[in-house]
């Protein structure tokens, strides 16, 4: 007996697993940059986040009596992204709490991969930020000569004392994944080159922040390189599930994120607004999608016909 299926009978080589693998590879340069600046604990925190994210996903699927999905690697990506959004000094139990929020609450309770409406890693970071503000804003002070001091210092967005080259190479304070701008840019361009992400979102996001900071009389380059903007723009605002699908929608999303980031950085109580901006825009994504839906080729809507006649 022959197999009977609907056409087509061949499929592309690209799989969701490969996409996730590409994202994992693209995160490595920034992670290595963080490791060089911030030391061995970077690896510990990342490993803990990845292991617990996968574990939570595995357990949740069993509890929910659903097919297990850890092989799609999306939990690994979430774990890595969360780790890169944490300071290197974070207590381990807090990092695990972040994984729980990201995987169990933000992702699996809404139905798992593809069903969550906010970026799990962003939600994990924000919950930790609001719950353990002190631990989440403790940065290792990095002396620009290169050695790591145990003292705590402010993020370069507040201290405003780092040079461009330090920001670019990662000789600065900040979360694990955001210190090394060069690593993020390499990873981001890799994803664009592999056609995993569209360049529209990151460039709209970064462009909007740079232009607004310039208008406000600040240094646009400094504001691009310092803080979590690059990490957020390339890796968090380009998440497929929680951002608009069309290019027009991605443009609106990116610019919206940029405006909110600028407003929080300039007028808000927090020095950093990237994660809040992305979270907010995640929530309005269904509206953007609805608003920017593409018109099928040659489509005629009955309403249009009435107007024409």
């Amino acid at each position, binding site marked *: *007996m*022959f*197999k*009977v*299926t*609907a*056409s*087509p*009978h*061949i*499929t*592309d080589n*690209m*799989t*969701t697993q*490969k*996409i996730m693998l590409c994202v994992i590879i693209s995160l490595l340069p920034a992670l290595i940059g963080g490791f060089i600046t911030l030391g061995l604990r970077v690896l510990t925190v990342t490993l803990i986040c990845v292991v617990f994210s996968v574990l939570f996903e595995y357990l949740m699927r069993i509890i929910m009596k659903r097919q297990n*999905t850890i092989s*799609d690697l*999306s939990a690994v990506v979430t774990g890595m992204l969360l780790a890169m959004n944490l300071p290197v000094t974070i207590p381990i139990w807090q990092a695990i709490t972040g994984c729980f929020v990201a995987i169990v609450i933000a992702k699996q309770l809404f139905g*798992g*991969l*593809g*069903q969550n409406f906010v970026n799990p890693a962003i939600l994990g970071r924000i919950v930790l930020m609001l719950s353990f503000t002190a631990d989440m804003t403790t940065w290792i002070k990095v002396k620009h000569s290169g050695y790591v001091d145990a003292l705590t210092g402010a993020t370069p967005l507040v201290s405003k004392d780092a040079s461009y080259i330090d920001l670019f190479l990662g000789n600065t304070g900040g979360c694990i994944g955001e210190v090394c701008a060069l690593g993020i840019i390499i990873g981001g361009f890799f994803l664009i080159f592999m056609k995993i992400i569209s360049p529209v979102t990151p460039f709209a996001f970064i462009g909007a922040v740079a232009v607004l900071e310039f208008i406000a009389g600040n240094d646009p380059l400094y504001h691009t390189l310092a803080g979590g903007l690059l990490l957020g723009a390339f890796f968090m605002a380009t998440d*497929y*599930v929680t951002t608009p*699908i*069309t290019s027009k929608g991605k443009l609106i999303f990116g610019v919206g994120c940029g405006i909110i980031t600028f407003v929080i950085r300039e007028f808000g109580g927090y020095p950093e607004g990237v994660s809040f901006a992305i979270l907010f825009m995640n929530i309005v994504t269904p509206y953007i999608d609805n608003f920017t*839906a*593409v*018109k*099928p*080729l*040659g*489509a*005629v809507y009955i309403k249009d016909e009435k107007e024409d006649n």
Partner: protein
Amino acid sequence: MKKLNSIKVPHNKNTKDCMIEKIPLPPFVKIPMLMNMGSPCNPIVKIKDTISVGQKIGDSDALFSVPVYSSVSGTVKAISDYRISDGSLCKAVEIECDNLQNISDSVKPSEINSREDFVKAVRESGLSGLGGAGFPTHIKLNPKNKINTLIVNGAECEPYITSDYRIMIEHADEIIEGLNFISKMLDIPNVIIGIEKNKPEAIKLFSEKLQNINNINVISLPSLYPQGAEKVLIYTSLGKIVQEGKLPSDYGIIVINVSTVYYLNVYFKTGMPLINRVVTVDGDTVKKAGNYLVPIGTSFDYILGYAQCEKDKINKLIAGGMMMGITVYDINQPVSKINNAILAMNKINIPKEIACIRCGRCMNACPVNLMPMEIERAYKKKNTEMLLKYKVNLCINCGCCTYICPSKRKLAETNQLAKLLISSIKKK
């Protein structure tokens, strides 16, 4: 040249240098009464009747019907029920060959002096579009509007299939002769032959032959799938969009398959209706892949036997191409007018479906700009209002969305199911 969304598929044109080869007569044929889009014919022969080649064996008064002719000479053994691929039943005439191949007296060129004669002759030729959809040719070539452009579809964008290509290479003169005749009868000033870039020999051949003919031009089309889809071809060659609910003829355009033109010319010249066709036989179980000229009604089993296919290794048998072909469950299925290929595959991949990650690849691949991921979501909820809003009715079932989906979701299949859902609700 304007382009719509498209995908790159492997070409696999392994049989492009295989000359068209006439296969030996099969011991019997089973000719279905419905091989075109539209209404079935009624058998007009009885059991034990002696039949000759080219004799009409089925006809109907319905507008969308195309007469059916015998491809062999012999005796009618049975008139049986036959299940066509959409699940409905029609009659089929089974004829045992006597190997004499006596040609029927009715086979003689018809006199064509007026447009009415022409349309009548086109219907009598038994032709429906040979590209795959099987639209009755006598309806296509009888447009209400004045036609400015006749587009000849030589794109053949499906992987593996080379039957149109071989006809173009081996019968270029007949095709041009047929085009001259059609354009004269319908008073069409402009004829375009569209051929994909991956067939440079065909483009070169036609360019040389058409040097002194001003009203027929060759254009080379990008080698992208689905270049041969009617709407895509019209957009690529003329930049025109066919609106929903309209036909190309409303814009003064007719698109016709290149093999259809060839067989029309055969009918005009000799009076021999469509009784055989070229079928590409390929696949990893087929040792002697090639392009075979087979009588309509020959069983797949017989053709695959001739092509030295290892039949016990077949896991999937496809009538048509890899992208739009229909899987066959019975190896005794007869070849119909619209069967441009038989693919007998051993290695098949039926990948595991996982959740949609909303990457938007399906939307960016869809030539008609649909959003298959949204259609799928609306279909799961049986939300017909949303399905109508997303215009699932415009889907041409090219399969690009399923092909490209990284989560291996069966989006094209869902689109077809969604269309059925809408039509079943409209009927109520």
